[in-house]
């Protein structure tokens, strides 16, 4: 060994597992700390023989696992309950069962990655170069020989004593290893490869950036078609799962969520809109600017599609149904009608919650507070109407005033039935033609039918038209459109009297 060159350490070669185990125990007992064993396969008991302490790695794994679990929970709480609350299947917005798979996955992900990379760091990996790799005999460490190397970096290292110690342990060969003083940096080819790969990574980023800020006239490429076109229930389509085409079983009458159970009993007014069968007349919470804003937002999301942005009943869905001439289409109500404005707030709330006529209930889609917010906004909207919403929103169908006072109680009852039995949906009182003809001036007029006959619209004719609307079809109208609400004979009589009173 020449002194001019730096020494890395002393290398000793052994032939069997037993030899290296006893040798390692001797080196350990000699008090060396900077040394290692190199074996072609895992050797049981080597840890003990070398005096390697129990690894601290599991603690890192445990902490990482707990971190992953907490982060998973926190993330979903933030996303689902705070930042972007979105009602799914009527479940609570922050519902733990849905979060557990993600918590589980993040626990595993954090533990696995932390274990992997901490193990690398604790083992000083990656190592680009070891002076031992320059020793020819050391190649057999991957095949059939066992080695111990004591390094000069050890505080008690002394070349002579280290060599004599290893000789005592029964080493078959002992060799001083030079430190060629090569750089421990990654090899050049590796750095080049890394640079090329790094540059290459920019390409997908650029493609993403390009895709985000440009428009395409081609449909997107479906890389995973069965994810893009899933066999699942789609809104407004029949579900193949159940005979009646619904995607989920309707809840049994009187069902409500367990958590709401006691709330409904504690505060029926707030949750159902009525107390002891009487509708609340006032909104059961302070009507603040925030509440109105919230109500406006919810109205635009949930109601405007049918009732229109101004509540006039002229929403997109309605317009579309008219343009398609959908048979049996019942137009959405004009929310400015006096009879709606005059309803107790609790009744409006109930209509939103449970639905009315062909409007579905929105209890499952809009939270209780938000439904009250919509009721509050509705009042404001009806106020705007008076203040000239027509200029604001464009022409809305004419609004009834408080209504003429009918001297005949039968006629008054008929006028009431006109709205409650939904005649109002298709027949106006001001001569405008909605879906069907106006009631104004109907009585006593001559009706021309599709079969060429004519008749005067008298009481008998009106009675027949309410009972059996398709008996005679007036020219220019479609048969089968009129939906007959359940109606008693007295009610029909009142309606006919009301229509007769509109004689011109």
């Amino acid at each position, binding site marked *: 060994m020449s002194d001019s060159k730096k020494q890395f350490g002393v290398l000793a070669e052994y032939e069997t*597992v*037993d030899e290296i*185990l006893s040798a390692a125990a001797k080196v350990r007992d000699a008090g060396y700390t900077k040394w290692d064993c190199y074996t072609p396969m*895992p050797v*049981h*008991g080597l840890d003990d023989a070398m005096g390697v302490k129990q690894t601290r790695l*599991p603690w890192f794994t*445990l902490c990482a696992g707990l971190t992953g679990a907490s982060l998973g929970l926190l993330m979903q709480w933030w996303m689902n309950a705070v930042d972007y609350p979105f009602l799914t*299947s*009527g479940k609570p917005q922050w519902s733990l*069962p*849905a979060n*557990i*798979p993600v918590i589980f996955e993040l626990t595993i992900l954090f533990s696995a990655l932390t274990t992997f990379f901490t193990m690398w760091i604790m083992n000083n990996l990656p190592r680009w170069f070891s002076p031992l790799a320059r020793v020819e005999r050391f190649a057999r460490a991957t095949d059939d020989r066992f080695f111990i190397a004591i390094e000069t970096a050890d505080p008690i290292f002394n070349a002579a004593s280290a060599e004599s110690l290893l000789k005592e342990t029964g080493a078959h060969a002992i060799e001083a290893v030079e430190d060629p003083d090569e750089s421990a940096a990654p090899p050049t080819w590796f750095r080049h490869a890394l640079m090329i790969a790094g540059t290459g990574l920019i390409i997908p980023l650029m493609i993403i950036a390009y895709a985000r800020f440009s428009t395409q006239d081609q449909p997107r490429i479906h890389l995973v078609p069965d994810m893009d076109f899933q066999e699942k229930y789609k809104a407004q389509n029949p579900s193949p799962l159940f005979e009646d085409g619904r995607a*989920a*079983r309707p809840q*049994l009458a009187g069902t409500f969520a*367990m958590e709401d159970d006691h709330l409904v009993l504690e505060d029926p007014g707030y949750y159902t809109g009525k107390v002891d069968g009487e509708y609340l007349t006032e909104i059961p919470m302070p009507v603040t600017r925030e509440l109105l804003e919230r109500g406006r937002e919810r109205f635009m999301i949930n109601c405007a599609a049918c009732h229109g942005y101004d509540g006039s009943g002229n929403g997109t869905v309605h317009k579309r149904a008219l343009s398609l001439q959908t048979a049996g289409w019942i137009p959405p109500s004009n929310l400015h009608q006096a009879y709606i404005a005059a309803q107790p707030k609790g009744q409006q709330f109930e209509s939103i919650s449970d639905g009315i006529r062909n409007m579905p209930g929105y209890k499952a889609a809009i939270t209780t507070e938000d439904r009250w917010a919509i009721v509050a906004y509705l009042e404001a909207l009806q106020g705007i109407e008076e203040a000239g919403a027509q200029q604001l929103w464009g022409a809305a169908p004419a609004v009834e005033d408080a209504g003429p006072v009918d001297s005949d109680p039968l006629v008054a009852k008929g006028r009431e039935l006109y709205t409650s039995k939904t005649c109002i949906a298709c027949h106006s009182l001001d001569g405008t033609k909605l879906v069907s003809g106006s009631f104004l001036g109907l009585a006593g007029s001559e009706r021309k039918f599709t079969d060429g006959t004519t008749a005067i619209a008298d009481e008998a004719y009106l009675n027949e038209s309410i009972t059996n609307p398709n008996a005679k079809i007036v020219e220019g109208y479609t048969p089968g459109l009129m939906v007959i609400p359940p109606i008693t004979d007295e009610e029909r009589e009142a309606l006919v009297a009301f229509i007769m009173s509109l004689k011109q």
Partner: protein
Amino acid sequence: MHTPEVVREPILATDTAARVSRVGLSVGVLGLLLALALGVSEGDGMRHFFWAYLVAFAYVFTLTLGGMFFVLIQHISGAKWSVTVRRLGEFAMNTVPLLIVMALPFLYPLFTHTGVDEYGGLLWPWIHPHGEHAELVNHKSPFLNTPFFIGRMVFYFAVWMVISRFFMKRSLAQDTDRDPSYPHTVKMRKISAPSIIAFALTLSFAAFDWLMSTDPVWFSTIFGVYIFAGCVLAIHSWIVLCSVFLQKRGYLKDMVNAEHYHDLGKFMLAFTIFWAYIAFSQFMLIWYANIPEETGWFQHRITPAWKGWSYALILTNFAVPFFGILSRHVKRNKTALAFWAAYILIVHFIDLYWIVMPSMDAHHNPFGFMDVCLVVGLFGFFVWAFARQATKNSVLAYGDPKLQDCVAHVNY
């Protein structure tokens, strides 16, 4: 590091086993008599007794079948680590005849008309369909009817009898056979593959028949796997307890060490997690889909009477043992591991009770001394049948070709 050559000789724990089996038998007889007396005094036509009996029966059944799985999986995988404790699994597996005798009392609720008017029968509600679900249950009668039910039961027992007898006999034969080609071990390895398929199917269907049909309108395809998770948990815990006990009495001293306990502990931890995974998988799909015919089962378990039990289950059967057995040091310390093994055997009962009893009464938790007497009693009989085999046979499969490897086994 070389382990000295193992001495291949039988380890006979005759006296200890005889004492234990006597204790088991006395506990069994006492528990059963006490439970019978308590059951009669309840004045419900023994309804509570039979439901609690089903829980206790399920407890023994999961131990026996757990033993069968343990033996089969060691053979099919050619496991070395488990050779020194495999005989304990074989003893557990070989208690099938006891299981058959224990099943005989079920004939009473199956054939009697007692309690039909008051509660719609003494045990499985499909025997006498009644109430709001009668029509639906009648619809299932091609499967859920008494003759077919008994036929299936006989079939399961026959399959288990064949499997357990075969593996017990061959294993004992291997002990004394010095043929260097180890024909018995080779044969067992071959037969273990079809056996494990038969095991999986019979266990699942037995779980459907005996436990799931306590709520005959409910169904869950993963239910058999859920019961299986309990079986595996129970048997590993039982083997740990037996092995620690035997070592305390001076047997298996050089045969089972920290490495083997470490592995048994790993399975206890793994199947604690697996149990939670399966239990949650079953729950989450039902919770998400929210279809009434599926949610009913869980609805019955979150009533005021059972809510506490259900939430406690998450803690007692998952959270507590998970952190309890997580550490390597616990798994390698046989005293600590024996504590957790006993703990798991106790909470295993909590799980089975939760599976069965809310189906009897969703609005009232009848848990009482009789339930404890029954499960302790039937468990006593199991211990009797288990230990009786150790009075005649070696507690070590000393002729196994992998015995040396097993003793030398080291965890990385």
